[in-house]
């Protein structure tokens, strides 16, 4: 099993280090970093429905790019997020999954796994949105496993790329949401009571930036 922390790569306020960190194919471009305006897009959320990122303006958005429906790690990751969903909703955040699979594939996968959040089809032109966000992996023909947390103004506050075969978990997403405050605006004062104190201080990118300090890089 891969040791997660040594292979993780994140972009906070720092630019990610340009080095190969995994045998698995990784995105050849840098992820859009924190502070960048998230490019808008419109993709199919069902065979007869589309969804635009701008529809969610005013609320935090979690974009979860993943390689493919049905592959084992994706299943675990999306199953985990499906389970954590009520926690994301406490921050009024919308979770959106994106892969290059088509809308019919997403529909079957959503039904089979009982998913309660939209999966968008970055299908035609293939991977166009993934390319915009810097998550596309040409050698694999799929998006890498990348996470973005956007604030209510549509600005990326946290982004993170995990190796293809490693489930990144949800702790980084929750820490990023906490740093935004409940309404999706940057927290200028401590969040409402109930939020764990350890995540209150510091810039939104404080924790992810710390993660870029992989042990072997020290």
């Amino acid at each position, binding site marked *: 099993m891969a040791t*997660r*922390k040594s292979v993780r790569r994140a972009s906070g306020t720092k630019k990610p280090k340009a080095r190969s960190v995994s045998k698995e194919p990784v995105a050849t471009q840098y992820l859009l970093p924190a502070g960048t305006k998230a490019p808008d897009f419109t993709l199919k959320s069902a065979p007869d429905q589309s969804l635009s990122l701008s529809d969610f303006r005013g609320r935090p958005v979690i974009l979860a790019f993943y390689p493919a429906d049905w592959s084992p790690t994706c299943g675990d990751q999306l199953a985990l997020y499906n*389970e954590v969903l009520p926690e994301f909703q406490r921050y009024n955040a919308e979770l959106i999954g994106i892969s290059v699979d088509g809308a019919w594939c997403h529909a079957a996968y959503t039904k089979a796994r009982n998913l309660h959040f939209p999966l968008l089809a970055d299908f035609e032109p293939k991977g166009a949105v993934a390319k915009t966000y810097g998550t596309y992996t040409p050698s694999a023909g799929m998006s890498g496993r990348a996470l973005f947390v956007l604030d209510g103004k549509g600005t990326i506050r946290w982004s993170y790329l995990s190796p293809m075969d490693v489930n990144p978990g949800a702790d980084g997403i929750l820490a990023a949401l906490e740093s935004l405050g409940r309404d999706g605006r940057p927290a200028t004062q401590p969040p409402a009571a109930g939020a764990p104190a350890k995540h209150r201080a510091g810039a939104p990118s404080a924790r992810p930036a710390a993660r870029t300090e992989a042990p072997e890089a020290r």
Partner: protein
Amino acid sequence: MSRLTPPPSARDHAHGPADAPVTLVEYGDYECPYCGAAYPVVKALQHRFGNRLRFIFRNFPLTQVHPHAAHAAEAAEAAADAGKFWEMHDAIFEHQGAITDHDLAGYAAHAGIDPAVITGALAAHTYAPRVREDFMSGVRSGVSGTPSFFINGQKYDGGYDAGSLGEAILAATGGQNRE
């Protein structure tokens, strides 16, 4: 490395002495086949390390994938209030293919618990908040799937065969197999 948050406390279901040099914490799902595979491994390691190992089980049910996982977890928590957590935990993992509410009540009866206590707790979701608390503590601690293990508070990312997990525990004991 991800740290276990919160650390072990009296709230946890623990097997083994509180002052054992190694505490192994598992986040598990009673309906997960991989957790079922890990169950005899943990048993063997408890036997191997004896009083040098404390084992703690926390709930991490993926309820949308495993339809019986939430009730199994709640039933084990209900059994804990009757002082029979490990009896229930073991019975469920030893019969992973049969964990309907009816089955769970049967395992409770076998452990000497009034099955009505279990069915009542399941109907009232008495222990659902406690199970969710465990789940969220796992999420916060970096658990992304089951089973996930922590050795003395550090997330363990190696394999969970008896060899790999045993080596990691042995290293944490400082090399002593048994007292």
